[in-house]
């Protein structure tokens, strides 16, 4: 049904080609990327230590088994030693082996415990930059609580992101280097999980919960991760990109964000009546970023999960009902409340939805109407 044999053959040959060239490619990604924070380094080290211990144990077990497979076989005329279990070793192995394993366990557990104490709880102190990370179906929201800045972060379609498809976003989580950051994780709808391997941890975003993690950033760079808890249809399209910059650059970035915010506010509050064309243009822009993941750019949705807005009884019905579902969402479904957008944006989207895709109701919704409906 979805089978496209041409693509399949094409991708098969491409895949084989890639495999052949694979040896020449620099990066195969065999291990975690180098850490970018002190806590991440601790976690990386304990990972390397347990992996080392596991490898040594594996080699020991394999050595015994292969020796036995080679030596103790009937084809070499080896006679079974029916009294092996009666030797002193046979009698005491049930103590010896557990004690040996316990020794290994204690080695691992004591080191793990020490690391855990350092990384698990956010240390006391006021010198933290607080970032609230909220998972949404299917985008991330970053609130810089101390700076009153809010960033919405979404994936970029393959045509634009190319090689970085699913590893790049429109707005990155920008953080200053040499700073301790406290992340507060929560979710607006279903479970998500924040995972950037360079920071060394992942944490679930759970509706109704706020969980904490922290990182003492110590390296500038761009670090890429993605949502790690199944959150529905487009779980694969929730990349996370953290950009750690110098403190000076971070100050500049904050200034830029503030200016953007001021400009948007000024535009929205201007007591002006907008023309249909202006609203349609603005509406398309906002709709395509915020609503198209579910309702699609074509307005056709992905039924039965996400309804079509083209010819939708809501989009062609009374304006009040349309505004209501956009402002307040619908409980128990993936349609969340969008009331946090400003009046202008909502007016533009609703106007757009009521006139695009041959809906042609001719209705123009003004910011003032939205204000009233709130």
């Amino acid at each position, binding site marked *: 049904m*979805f089978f496209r044999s041409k693509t*399949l053959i094409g*991708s*098969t040959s491409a*895949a084989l080609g890639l495999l052949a060239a694979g040896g020449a490619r620099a990066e195969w*990604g065999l*291990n*975690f990327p180098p850490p970018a924070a002190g806590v991440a380094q*601790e*976690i990386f080290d304990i*990972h390397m230590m*347990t992996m080392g211990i596991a490898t040594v144990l*594996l080699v020991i077990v*394999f050595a015994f*088994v292969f020796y*036995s497979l080679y030596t*103790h*076989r*009937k084809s070499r005329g*080896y006679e*079974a*030693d029916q009294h*092996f*279990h009666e030797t002193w070793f*046979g009698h005491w*192995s*049930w103590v010896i082996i557990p004690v040996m*394993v316990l020794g*290994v*366990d204690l080695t*691992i*557990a004591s080191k*793990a*415990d020490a690391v*855990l104490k350092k990384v*698990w*709880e956010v240390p006391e102190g006021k010198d933290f930059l607080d970032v609230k990370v909220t998972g949404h179906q299917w985008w991330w929201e970053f609130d810089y609580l101390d700076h009153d800045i809010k960033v919405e972060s979404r994936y970029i379609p393959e045509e634009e992101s190319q090689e970085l498809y699913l*590893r790049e976003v429109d707005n990155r989580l920008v953080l200053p280097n040499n700073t301790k950051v406290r992340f507060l994780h929560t979710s607006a709808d279903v*479970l998500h*999980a924040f*995972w950037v391997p360079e920071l*060394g*941890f*992942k*944490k*679930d975003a*759970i*509706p*109704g*919960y706020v*969980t904490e993690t922290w990182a003492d950033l110590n390296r500038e760079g761009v670090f*890429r991760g*993605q949502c*790690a*808890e*199944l959150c*529905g*249809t487009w*779980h694969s399209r929730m990349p996370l990109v953290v950009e750690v910059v110098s403190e000076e650059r971070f100050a500049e970035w904050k200034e830029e964000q503030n200016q953007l915010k001021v400009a948007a506010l000024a535009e929205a509050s201007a007591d002006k009546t907008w023309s249909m064309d202006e609203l349609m243009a603005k509406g398309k822009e906002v709709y395509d970023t915020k609503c198209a993941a579910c309702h699609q750019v074509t307005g056709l949705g992905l039924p039965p999960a996400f309804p079509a807005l083209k010819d939708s009884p809501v989009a062609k019905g009374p304006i009040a009902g349309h505004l209501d579902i956009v402002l307040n969402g619908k409980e128990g*479904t993936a349609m969340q409340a969008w009331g946090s957008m400003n009046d202008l944006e909502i007016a533009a989207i609703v106007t757009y939805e009521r006139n695009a895709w041959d809906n042609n109701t001719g209705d123009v919704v003004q910011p003032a109407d939205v204000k009233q409906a709130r």
Partner: protein
Amino acid sequence: MSTTTLTHDDAHHHDAPKGWRRWLFSTNHKDIGTLYLLFALTMLFFGGASAMVVRAELFMPGIQLVDPDLYNNLVTNHALIMIFGAVMPAAAGLANWMIPMMIGAPDMALPRMNNLSFWVLPAAATMMILSFVVPFFPGGGTQINTGWTLYPPLSVQVGMSMDFLIFAIHLLGISSVLASINIIVTLLNMRAPGMTLMKMPMFCWTWLVTAFLLILVVPVLAGGVTMLLFDRHFGTSFFDAAGGGDPVLFQHLFWFFGHPEVYILLLPSIGVLSHVIPTFSRKPLFGYNSMVGAMLAVATIGMVVWAHHQYTIGMSLGAVTYFMIGTIIISIPVGLMIFNFIATMWRGSMTFETPMLFAVAIVLMFTFGGLSGVMLAVVPADMQYHDSMFVVAHFHYVLMPGAVFGLFAGVFYWLPKWTGHMYNERLAKIFFWTNVISFNITFFPQHFLGLAGMPRRIIDYNVMYTEFNVISSIGGIVFGLSHLLFLYIIISTIRGGKKAKAKAWEGAKGLEWELDSPPAFHTWTVAPTIK
């Protein structure tokens, strides 16, 4: 013991009925065992087909074959069918066939209940298949895109197919609990005179523990999904934070079942190995007592470490430390089991028929999976591994050898007993090698994918993950197809082949080998006496 006084005449009151009545109304442990095994084999192919579609989709970056919801539906369906449809019924099939023959009993203690516990399964499977296909009909709602863990709130968003699934789980649970009751009653009451618990064949011991585990944890899962059903339809908010509930509560209920479940899948196969390895090493099982002790320890500790699947939910430091240490401690009894197997092979006189080949592969690969389990148990490191492809690699390395290969070993080991024919050893060896090699090609690279940052349960991925996914998919397709050979071997062995002796294997020990191959419809109508 009343059963030992059963006279010959009683046993022949009813002979094997003919036609469909023989199966539908069966109260004979051998026939019901066969039904279980055939059911499991069928489900193995359903579950395998969904996995092959998943692997085909992941072959290359991009979305080629299925849409994202169908992809997640397949992932969910694969796991549930394999666990509840293939592995558990197959283990129950072995139990039905072998337990009465091994302990010298004429049948299971509760033969009618035995019939019921099997015939609930096809109903459950129908429900489960409906939950998969219903969304393709008009008005059928959305697909189950939650994975087998069914976490809310996502599972509350899903359409009516989730309700089908919840009822399927109820039915499967009923079947498992009934079968478990039957096995416990049989093992405790119907052993031949002189067979004390500590003389019981190891396969029976593993099933005794498994049955207790099932009775303890399956009702918890049933309760959890029932609460989900109420949240979905009856206005409760057990798992809805907005209504004062707690989405994490479901996770605790699920894993309180889910972690013991992995031992439920593992133990019967450990039981099989405890017969296969001594037989082909021509030497008794090393450390029978410590094996029993280790198993009881695994089951007990295994009941109290469930939250190692939830390290990232934000538990307190005290809680994660407890779950970490508990989980790491499990490696002690597990390590002892593996040691006992190696010590049984040590200074034996080994030959390598197919069951033994599987046994050796299990010892090696299960050790590998257990060691990656210890890595996962370490909380700080698991904050990286969790929900990545590394976990997928881990559990396939424990489950495939630990459960499925053990069942394969059991099937090859006892097939001559059941059918009276020797299977084709050459073909079986070809099956073994393709199966085991392609398994490793499929799952070994997934460790690297996980470490490099690829999460599990995603339909589409960045080009940087291409190479290992290509390798894994090629392995996966070969692995899936290799089971057709398994099917062929089984069918041809049922239909004919070299006549099997009563004692099909030179080194075999135990009551089942004193019966003819194939055994009579009713066996041990006079109980043997164990010295």
